[in-house]
């Protein structure tokens, strides 16, 4: 076991930190520490410009292979980039869905033409993507997708009809990747297709969902014979589930340490307030602050194990617990923040509903244990795949 990074990696760290210090300032000062879950509505134009700035510096798609415009950065270097990015207060990435989901999917499963057509826009920071998976009747039961894709032989195009929901950044995105049923008679995992769909067309309507925070970053997306080119299906009709699940394997946790740096910033803020307002002298609060510290440090050690794991792409035990662990920790941090603030936790920055950072954290972290697989679904996955316990009979 070795805790330190190599000298070469440390030089890379300095390069990243140096570039961020020189560029994340001036017109971009306002977006430091902004964006990300719960704050996606903030400084949208500035953050779009920042995506292009990142590209100028060569910092988009750094883990992508060189032939597709990436840097082929090692796992360690991707970790370092994410860590330094968060340390510098780098804003929530508008382009992360394209960079971490669409790009790797096309690189693995796409045709040469698809790669040529879509990858450069993602790297440039021009083309933002959103993810069209969940539907009103397909939440935890994701395979229950009802959205249909019909191939119009005359027009030579796919026509997509149906409804998606919980689509982050749909209103800002140029493209959406959509799973839709290519075989109308199919059920479950079979008979799905994976489509690359342009959002700016008459058959697509985006309707924001107002959340408990009073802000909107999720949307409903309605497709009424939305048009997709004949070439804009990844894999064959019927392969959609395999392509969609393949995405999960690409995220081997390189962003986890960066995510934890954001959590650390939030935790530090809670500690600062506790020391300032005297909550730090309350024995019960001291226990909870220490517990949060323990939880966050272990989250980091756990990621270090995960990142050092085998190259076979299979999910190790420490990777299987990760979502349940971080989501629960983060949700508890939100509650701790309110309890540290005491009666001030109720008072808003401004009418009508101007939440401060910690209030927003408190409310929005209730989503953490729901999206991307609820805590209950995570527990099923752990029990079935890691512990080999049988599935409950399903109706």
């Amino acid at each position: 076991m070795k805790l330190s990074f190599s000298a070469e990696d440390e030089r890379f760290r300095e390069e990243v930190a140096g570039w961020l210090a020189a560029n994340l300032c001036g017109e971009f000062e306002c977006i430091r520490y902004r964006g990300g879950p719960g704050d996606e509505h903030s400084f949208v134009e500035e953050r779009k410009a920042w995506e292009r700035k990142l590209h100028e510096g060569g910092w988009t798609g750094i883990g992508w292979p060189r032939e597709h415009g990436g840097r082929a950065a090692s796992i360690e270097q991707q970790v370092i980039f994410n860590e330094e990015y968060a340390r510098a207060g780098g804003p929530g990435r508008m382009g992360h869905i394209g960079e971490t989901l669409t790009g790797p999917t096309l690189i693995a499963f796409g045709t040469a033409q698809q790669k040529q057509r879509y990858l450069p826009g993602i790297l440039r920071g021009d083309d933002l993507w959103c993810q069209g998976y969940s539907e009103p009747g397909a939440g935890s039961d994701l395979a229950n997708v009802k959205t249909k894709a019909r191939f119009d032989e005359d027009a030579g195009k796919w026509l997509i009809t149906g409804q998606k929901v919980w689509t982050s950044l749909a209103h800002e995105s140029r493209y959406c990747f959509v799973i839709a049923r290519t075989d109308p008679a199919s059920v479950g995992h079979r008979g799905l297709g994976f489509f690359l769909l342009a959002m700016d067309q008459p058959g697509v309507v985006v309707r924001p969902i107002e959340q408990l925070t009073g802000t909107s970053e999720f949307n409903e997306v309605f497709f009424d014979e939305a048009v997709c080119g004949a070439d804009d299906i990844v894999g064959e009709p019927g392969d959609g589930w395999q392509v969609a699940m393949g995405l999960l394997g690409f995220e081997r946790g390189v962003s986890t340490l960066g995510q934890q740096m954001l959590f650390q910033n939030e935790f530090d803020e809670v500690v600062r307030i506790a020391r300032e307002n005297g909550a730090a002298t309350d024995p019960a609060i001291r226990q909870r602050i220490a517990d949060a510290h323990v939880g966050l440090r272990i989250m980091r050690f756990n990621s270090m194990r995960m990142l050092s794991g085998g190259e076979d792409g299979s999910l190790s035990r420490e990777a299987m617990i990760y979502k349940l662990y971080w989501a629960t920790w983060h949700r508890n941090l939100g509650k701790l923040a309110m309890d540290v603030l005491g009666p001030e936790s109720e008072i808003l920055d401004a009418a009508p509903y101007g939440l401060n950072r910690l209030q927003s954290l408190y409310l929005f972290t209730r989503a953490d244990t729901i999206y991307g697989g609820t805590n209950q679904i995570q527990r099923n996955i752990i029990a079935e795949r890691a512990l080999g316990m049988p599935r409950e009979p399903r109706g």
Partner: protein
Amino acid sequence: MDFRFTEEQDMIRSTAEAFLAEASTPAAVRSAMITEQGYDPALWQRICNDMCWQAMHIPEQYGGLGLGYVELVATLEQMGRYLLCSPFFATVCLAANAILVAGSEEQKAEYLPQLASGTTATLAWTGSSGRWDARAVDVVCSADGDGYRLSGSYRYVPDGHTAQLLVVAARAQGSSGAEGISLFVLPADSAGISRQWLPTMDQTRRQAQLVFEDVRVPAGALMGGEGTGWALLEKTVDLATVAVAAEQVGGAQQALDSTVAYLKERVQFGRVIASYQAVKHKAADMMVKVEASRSAVYYAACIADEALAGGALAQELPEAASIAKAYCSDAYFFNAGCGIQLHGGVGITAEYDIQLYFKRAKSTETFLGNSAWHRERLAGLLLDGPVPAARGGR
């Protein structure tokens, strides 16, 4: 960065697993735990002669194997998993660490080879205050010619009634807190020492009371400076704390594994109960606890290595030890408690082993400070020091 076992470390772990699965069976544990000695001397001899675990992290120049804390932790995890009844923890994790941390060159050269060849030993430092900080030390030492005299009682001393060698802490008359504490190493049969084992709820680990009545020790028995022993003792205890946490990981893992095995056999309402979500979700929570515990202990083991070698991260030891102990104590208790619940009625019988793990979970939780104690220690580090420089942020 490469935060995983090397091939050699993996081999050490699997060797320990294979050996203990055969040598520390439930029957062997149950037979050793009802003896006054608390362990099977024949098994201890096999460990010393065949496995050489007692010599594992002692440097080669003192007759040890010269391996590190990660190897030690990998082995301790298996000992915890198989509830090994043994003077190993007291000898290696308490006494050997104390001598490594506090001993002079001569003392290391004299005592470490003895420990490496199987002499048993322990560390006695706590009185009956129930504390785990410097105030726990209440045996008094006074100068006596060119040596010292020690008087008072030690309690909660692991294997204190059988250890052949003792490392003890005592404080100068009238001193308090971290001041005035000195460490000594002496044979357990020194005149004036009476030792008595204390029957314990967790029968798999012995505790003893040691009464010192004017015990005379020579000047050469002093380890570290006179009255400046707390820093050395605290470091020793932190190293031992990492070791306890490693045992807890193994115990928490076994509580999960044995429970899941039972759940896959037990049929109710026409199905194995492992297929019910209410049951599966509890088991999944147990796995989260054990994997997070393991991450905490592996990190602490790396830091312990740095602390013993004077590495760059050595100063992280108190924090890493407290993180590991706080988390693993709660995790082990949670897993053992859930284990009993998920076993149903048989969980509270003497016949099923889960009760032994439930008891070990509590005894290891209490020993060297429970989770609340370690969290308060961490809170002190986080909240009571100088205010850190302000960071950016909205």
